[in-house]
């Protein structure tokens, strides 16, 4: 097991390096250069001198491999550089916003699991009945509904029915849990529903597959209670693919939040990303894309570990 962990950790290094290379050069395939482009984006006149000064300030006058090494070296120390727009250190900015996005992400995950697993199991047990069709249609609808629109509908509903709007200012959970949840539960629900759609479909198909197995028939033949068969025999074996999809979706949740945060005026990573794109703040975009990829790779790693721990059939050397 230890050697497996070490091996997996070592394997992450080339992946992270290639992601860093891709992100870095992606930002440099811009025709022309990013400084000129940024000034152009502001539609203000910029002289050659001010462009040169800016370029020097950002270290863009250096050869490209050197720029990469400086940036990469910073990453290793957890330093993402400074924003091209505000000049503030990016790491500081990320730290401020990470908590909020993480909390919404975790809450959405919990909501998604609470919806997906019971519904998926139910649909599988009642395959090809109206229950199954209803669950399937609800989950295809979940995939089709943009979470930002769902968010707008929530706001609309709260306004029309309760004449109440969720608080607009973020309160940390430990200061006032009620205030905090009153604000964040709505985006979590909007994102969580969509997220549950994927997991419901996965739970359903995994359960269907497991229910056809011989050991389930044996358990039934033994006369075991249906509940025991379900919880101990079926669900346990169906959970592996479900766990994977939930974990991978969690990593991608940071992406899903990009749009929804905008609706609820949340000052999270998503909002930061949108602002960065709108301002063509390339250093900030670079940092955020890198952060998302890093989270994804880490989640993948933990999923692999969880596999090895949960499923005794899987043995890693």
């Amino acid at each position, binding site marked *: 097991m230890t050697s497996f962990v070490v091996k997996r950790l070592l394997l992450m290094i080339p*992946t992270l390096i*290639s*992601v860093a290379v*891709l992100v870095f050069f*992606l*930002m440099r*395939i*811009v025709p022309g250069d990013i400084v000129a482009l940024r000034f152009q*984006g502001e539609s203000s006149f910029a002289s050659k001198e001010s462009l040169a000064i800016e370029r020097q300030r950002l270290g863009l006058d250096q050869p490209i491999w050197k720029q990469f090494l400086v940036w990469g070296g910073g990453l290793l120390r957890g330093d993402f550089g400074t924003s091209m727009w505000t000049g503030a250190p990016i790491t500081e900015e990320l730290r401020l916003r990470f908590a909020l996005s993480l909390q919404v992400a975790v809450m959405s995950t919990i909501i998604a699991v609470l919806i997906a697993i019971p519904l998926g199991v139910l649909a599988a047990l009642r395959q090809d009945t109206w229950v199954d069709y209803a669950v399937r249609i609800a989950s*295809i*609808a979940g*995939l*089709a*509904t*943009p979470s*930002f*629109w769902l968010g*707008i*509908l929530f*706001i*609309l509903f709260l*306004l*029309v029915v309760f004449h109440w709007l969720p608080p607009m200012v973020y309160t940390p959970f430990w200061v006032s849990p009620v205030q905090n949840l009153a604000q964040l539960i709505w985006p979590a629900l909007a994102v969580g529903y969509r997220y549950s759609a994927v997991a419901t479909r996965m739970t359903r*198909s995994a359960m269907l*597959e497991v229910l056809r197995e011989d050991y389930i028939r044996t358990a039934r033949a033994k006369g075991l209670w249906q509940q025991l068969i379900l919880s101990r025999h079926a669900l346990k074996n169906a959970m592996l693919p479900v766990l994977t999809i939930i974990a991978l979706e969690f*990593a*991608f949740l*940071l*992406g*899903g939040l*990009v*749009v929804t945060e*905008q*609706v609820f005026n949340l000052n999270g990573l998503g909002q930061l*990303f*949108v602002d*960065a*794109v*709108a301002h*063509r703040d*390339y250093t900030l*975009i670079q940092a*955020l*894309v890198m952060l*998302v*990829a890093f989270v*994804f*790779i880490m989640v*993948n790693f933990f999923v692999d570990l969880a596999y090895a721990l949960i499923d005794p059939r899987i043995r890693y050397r």
Partner: protein
Amino acid sequence: MALDRPLEDVVALADLTPERSVKDGVVDFVRHRPLGAIGAAVVLLNILAGVFAGVLAPYDPVATDYAAMLSRPSLAHWLGTDAFGRDVLSRILYGARTAMLVGFAVALVGATVGAVIGVTSAYFGGRIDLAIQRVMDIFLSFPLIILALAMVSILGTGLVNVIVAIMIPLIPRASLVTRSSALAIREMPYVDAARAAGYRHRRIILRHMLPNVMAPYLIMLTAFLGQAILLEASLSFLGLGVAEPTPAWGLMLRGAAVQFAETAPWMAVFPGLAISLAVFAFNLFGDSLRDALDPRLRTQ
């Protein structure tokens, strides 16, 4: 290799892909997959709305009418008007044009480029395959919208740029799927035969292998349609997609729709309904098509 195969085997292979008319296929599809057929019908309605928006729309989608600002749904304005007095129904119909344009452009080009990359990768195998797959893997470790937004930051906003920005993150996904089916096709006797006949790599890839990954290609294509429409709506909603005054569903939900949510809820409800319905229809159709074309993929 083809010659040492018993004749029955070759015949059986030919049987797997019997010649069937398109009409038979359509009739079969409607009969066995009613949900998919409903999806296809809604898709068709969307396409018609997009194509004939000019004829169907009762008003000019960009014409402002300050006398009719924020008017509620009525006989004159079936779905009401927005904060500039623009007719919501007309804007939704023209929005269908934008959505279909983005959807089909992204899906067709994205799936095709992805398929060519996937098949090429599978055909050559070895180091070339490994290198291509590594690059694709890296792309796959980003959420679609993050990559699309990063592309927008490079390309800028506007219809064509948005199409490219959405297409690029989808290409690796298409290549992944087509590659896995192309790997099996590479071992087929007819590919060996083509190679033995001395055809160039390009001809073998494009003429012999590509047409045989049609099933996964079509599945990808329909899946991309819904995703592309959703992504376009998201980008436009963020103000980073199609630019005003072009009518686009995502754009209609931006700003004023939330601001006037209480007094003019139709502004927020109908465009979102249009997005959901279109994507829902595409997904329904795509799901059924997938089941019909490739039963092995059903569990995914």
